[in-house]
């Protein structure tokens, strides 16, 4: 199996040079790796049908105990074959579609091969995180493929939206995987599947389930994440034929099927999957019916089809599981064919509008035949395999343990709409009269036509010989999924009457809807608009909000006055240090006496000074108010027994005020800081912060050896009783000298600058 992955990866590497060299001949070479993979898978089929299938594993990241493990059993074989076979056909088709532009073909082939590698890895993965890696790879490749041939702005936005939704879902899924691997104590899927009971009884079950479902639903376009799929229709038709019918969108369904033994059986699983699937089915079918663009119509029917599959997986009976797998395979076959047909129509006529495409049957007979057959499979006309799928689905719905009637009714409506769509796609463009009859009746190149024809034919063949080919495979897959294989045949001729009546009724209702299409459209106009607009609008709205918030956030760092930046840093420092210090416990409040009356007066003076500094109108007044603060604080020091401190305080304050006033005389600044509540609050906060810091830093009894020694020496050695003065003037006198020198130098510098300014102002 590693060989298969390697094959496709090498194909991706060599695709571009191969196309450049071979030109027209590329059509023979490009699909070869895919064919090779299909052959490889075919040879392994007998082994794969065994109990546990085949496992291959290589140790990968020892540090995370992650192994690169692959597993081939019935379930993964089915999906892998789809990847390989449809991939080969799509490449053949593409070489006809992109004929003449070998560069584009090369890029398409490279990206498609890369995508196929990722998809193959996804379905073969036997480890949760390996699966995640391939999951994200498929998202990236799909983004690049959509961007292959971009024309319109909304096309690019569509690609981005698609990737964002699936990427976001992927990340949620990753967390879900982590939780799941913790609940099961392993990340290996094979081991996980055997610990189903352990997982289901774990407390992590519900969050893990929700997250994993988020990933699966985003990928498989379930409501409300379905809106990215129509946007992805900007991709060229061959891309849609591969990704959006058979492979990428089925990844979510595959995940659900794979994890069914581990996550299933619990009521949450059934409830969520059932409801989401049913709603998606209806919404998709309704949207499809109202579409005019054929490609979007196919996209919407794909949504409906995926909804059906999810619903069936939610039902969970053996029949339902069987029906789900058959449906997936059948859907892939006819949807890919139809996408290719629509692509050819678009290429030949330049139109995708269902109301304008008419009467092409005469000019494009083979295409008509192919489209008709594929549409019949979609509609569920026997003897095509689509009919078998339809009947199985109804059988499953009727056999559901809860609300079979409701399910059948919902399924009926949805399927009727789908039948109508099938007729719209497969029949309508080719009959009647219309402006598009002007297409020259040329036969499309073989490469272009052969693949859809093959797919359509397969639909017929499988319808006839289903038992030998499909039954054992489906049974093995179902067994892997944890349900008991039934001994009943795939399509017993003794099918219950209800089922066959339902099937026939659907066909009838679908035709009726087709005939009365315009009237039905008029009635359901409002509903359709709502369904289409809703989530997409929400998504765009959210993105818009995020962008707006981001702009504001980025602005915080730029285009701010310096004051604001300083404020931010100051507050941050205070908060960080304050929180840590205060949480450590503050020492007791150092208040051992009541302040005297005059001390209150001085404090009031200081506060008044501060207030007037803040609220004064001219800078000079503010500076003088600052001086008042200084004088008040100095007086406080004086009264509390520190004359030298008071002296220093007053001296420094006077000097500062003088200097500031001098500067103000020369420069005349404007007070530009806003004085709003925010600034006031910030200032108070910083002030309070510093108060707390000071409080917290009050020494809690640790004796500082130096200061004790100094205070002891103060009288005997230096003949001074005021220790502070002694230290300043005697013990650390050189420090003081240095400070004086620095201050003098600064003063000289300031004077020089001011004098220079004065001279300049004069001339």
């Amino acid at each position: 199996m590693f060989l298969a992955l390697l094959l496709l990866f090498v194909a991706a590497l060599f695709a571009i040079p191969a196309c450049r060299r071979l030109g027209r001949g590329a059509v023979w070479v490009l699909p070869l790796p895919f064919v090779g993979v299909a052959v490889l898978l075919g040879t392994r089929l007998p082994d794969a049908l065994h109990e546990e299938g085949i496992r291959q594993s290589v140790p990968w990241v020892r540090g995370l105990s992650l192994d690169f493990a692959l597993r081939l059993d019935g379930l993964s074989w089915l999906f892998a074959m789809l990847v390989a076979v449809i991939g080969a056909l799509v490449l053949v088709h593409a070489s006809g579609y992109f004929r003449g532009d070998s560069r584009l073909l090369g890029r398409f082939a490279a990206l498609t091969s890369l995508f196929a590698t990722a998809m193959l890895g996804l379905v073969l993965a036997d480890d949760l995180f390996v699966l995640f890696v391939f999951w994200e790879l498929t998202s990236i490749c799909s983004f690049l493929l959509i961007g292959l041939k971009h024309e319109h702005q909304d096309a690019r936005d569509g690609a981005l939206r698609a990737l964002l939704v699936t990427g976001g879902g992927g990340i949620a899924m990753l967390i879900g995987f982590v939780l799941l691997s913790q609940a099961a104590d392993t990340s290996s899927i094979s081991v996980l599947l055997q610990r189903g009971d352990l997982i289901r009884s774990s407390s992590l079950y519900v969050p893990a389930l929700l997250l994993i479902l988020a990933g699966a639903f985003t990928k498989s376009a379930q409501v409300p994440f379905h809106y990215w799929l129509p946007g992805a229709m900007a991709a060229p038709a061959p891309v849609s034929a591969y990704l959006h019918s058979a492979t990428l969108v089925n990844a979510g369904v595959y995940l659900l099927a794979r994890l069914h033994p581990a996550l299933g059986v619990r009521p949450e699983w059934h409830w969520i999957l059932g409801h989401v699937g049913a709603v998606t089915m209806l919404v998709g079918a309704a949207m499809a019916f109202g579409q005019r663009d054929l490609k979007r119509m196919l996209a919407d029917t794909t949504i409906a089809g995926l909804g059906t599959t999810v619903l069936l997986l939610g039902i969970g009976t053996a029949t339902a599981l069987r029906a789900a797998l058959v449906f997936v395979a059948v859907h892939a076959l006819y949807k890919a064919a139809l996408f290719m047909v629509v692509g050819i129509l678009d290429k030949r006529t330049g139109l995708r509008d269902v109301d304008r495409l008419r009467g092409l049957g005469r000019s494009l007979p083979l295409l008509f035949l192919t489209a008709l057959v594929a549409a019949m499979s979609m509609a569920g006309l026997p003897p095509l395999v689509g009919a078998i799928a339809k009947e199985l689905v109804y059988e499953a719905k009727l056999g559901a343990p809860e609300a079979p009637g409701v399910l059948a009714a919902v399924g009926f409506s949805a399927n009727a709409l789908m039948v109508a769509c099938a007729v719209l796609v497969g029949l309508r463009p080719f009959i009647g009269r219309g402006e598009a009859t002007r297409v020259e009746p040329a036969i499309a190149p073989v490469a272009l036509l052969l693949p859809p024809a093959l797919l359509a034919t397969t639909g017929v063949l499988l319808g006839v010989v289903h038992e030998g080919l499909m039954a054992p495979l489906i049974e093995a897959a179902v067994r892997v999924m944890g349900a008991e294989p039934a001994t009943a045949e795939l399509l017993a001729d003794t099918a219950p009457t209800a089922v066959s009546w339902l099937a026939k009724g659907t066909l009838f209702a679908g035709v009726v809807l087709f005939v009365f299409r315009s009237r039905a459209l008029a009635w359901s106009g409002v509903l359709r608009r709502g369904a289409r607009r809703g989530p997409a609008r929400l998504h765009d709205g959210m993105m818009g909000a995020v962008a707006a918030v981001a702009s504001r956030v980025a602005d915080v760092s730029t285009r701010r006055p310096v004051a604001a930046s300083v404020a931010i840093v100051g507050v941050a420092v205070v908060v960080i240090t304050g929180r840590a210090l205060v949480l450590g416990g503050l020492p007791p409040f150092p208040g051992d006496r009541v302040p005297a009356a005059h001390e209150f007066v001085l404090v009031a003076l200081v506060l008044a000074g501060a207030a007037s500094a803040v609220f004064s109108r001219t800078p000079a007044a503010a500076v003088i108010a600052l001086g008042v603060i200084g004088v008040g604080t100095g007086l406080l020091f004086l009264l509390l027994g520190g004359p030298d401190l008071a002296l220093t305080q007053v001296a420094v304050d006077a000097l500062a005020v003088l200097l500031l006033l001098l500067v103000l005389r020369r420069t005349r600044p404007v007070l530009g800081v806003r004085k709003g509540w925010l600034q006031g609050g910030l200032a108070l906060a910083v002030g309070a912060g510093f108060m707390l810091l000071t409080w917290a830093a009050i020494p809690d009894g640790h004796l500082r050896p130096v200061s004790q020694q100094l205070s002891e020496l103060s009288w005997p050695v230096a003949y001074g009783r005021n220790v502070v003065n002694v230290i300043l003037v005697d013990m650390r006198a050189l420090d003081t000298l240095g400070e004086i020198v620095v201050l003098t130098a600064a003063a000289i510098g300031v004077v020089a600058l001011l004098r220079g300014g004065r001279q300049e102002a004069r001339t």
Partner: protein
Amino acid sequence: MNIDTSQLFAIFGVESLLGLLGLVLIVTDLLVGKGRLTGPATAVRTLAFGGLVAIFAWSFVLEPGAEGALGTLDSFALFFKRFFLATAVATLGVAAPYEDRLSAGRAEFPTLLVFTTLGMCLLSSANDFVTLFVGLELVTVVLFLMAAYRPQLPRSIEAGIKFVVIGALSAAFMVYGIAFVYGTTGSFEFSQISAVINAQESLPAGLKFGLLMVLVGLGFKLGAVPFHIWIPDVYQGAPTPTTAFLSVGSKAVGVVLLMRLVYTVMGPAAAQWTTVLAGLAALTLLMGGLGAIPQTELKRFLGYSGISHAGFLLVALATHSEASAGAILFYVVTYLFANMAAFLVIVIVSRTDDDNHMDRINGLANRSPFLALVLTTSMLSLAGVPPFAGFFAKFMVLRAAVAEPALVWLVAFSLLMAVTSLYYYLCILKRIYMRDAVDTGFLEISGGARLLLLLCMLAVFAFGIYQQPLVQAAEAGASSLFR
């Protein structure tokens, strides 16, 4: 104080060689250039490149284990010495196509780079605060110069000045903190400080304050919010090679020193810091996740993206386990390759009119598929998309963090921010693949540049698929922090 100098050469071998290389470069420039200030500097550049590569190769001969009074050569230090040497080599590669935009000082640039790298290697080995500070200042001061290297451009001078002011501020905070730590513990050496810290239950207020001030100073270097204010303007204004070096080197310096602080100095007591670091991480992630969305200039964009990565590194720091330490080492290496490739692409693409607006990369897929591929790989790795190395880096960080029940909210928040950052990286991809090109000239890519781009791209890809050697190296490096 007895200084044990016997092991000095063993510990500081790389630094000695770098110093010698720097001197040789100066002499070469004087001999070859004959004292002119302008003009080409091929000899110096080649010699610098060769010298750095040689020292890098030689560093693999060194064995960890030497320890002395001024520094230590444990495997953590050795890992980062090699890392800084690799960063310097890559920066020279980014500078090569940029050279013709430098009107003067072409020979001085590699020399300055060598000296900065010397400082970075020095501080990786630091086991006391003095060596740490010396190394840090050497790095910072030279980076001031490199940021203002094109003085004719107002933006470059603006970047230099802003950087100087912020650098001085952060150094001031740091020294203030170191002083407090010294005052309360009586030593500069990490081992002794750690002993004091872990000997008592609750730390004295002065010590806490000092450690927090050091944290603030280092936060500036790393670009943690709210100390990130300088990053957008300096990144945008400085010449692109300097920005490239800053984005990886300065961040790594912050990381190295924070790891020494948290793991070596604080040791087991660091568990008390989890909340502070987690809060910083969350704010940083928020700014990094949202700030890049409205950007239209490439270097500013990478600045905000770098802030987001700093957030992830902080998450790992907050986790404080051996697994998270190994994750950090893995992360910086992947970040190095992804970022350098992106910057080299920016240099090549902005060549014609010296402008780094995002329109330069419009339609790159058509103009040069090679550059588009490299930039795509780089962006996807930075976004954390598998199978690139960046995904595993983030995965390792988050996996380590999930094991800590108190940090679950942080993990969830970081994943949310990862989604928003995915959005803006995808916008770059959208420009590359889905917009029509604004410039139409031919993009010339020299052989050396091509080689470097290819190397970075392959490294990002290879480390995504086969991480084992790098994971082993990272774990070996981290283990020495937990002796």
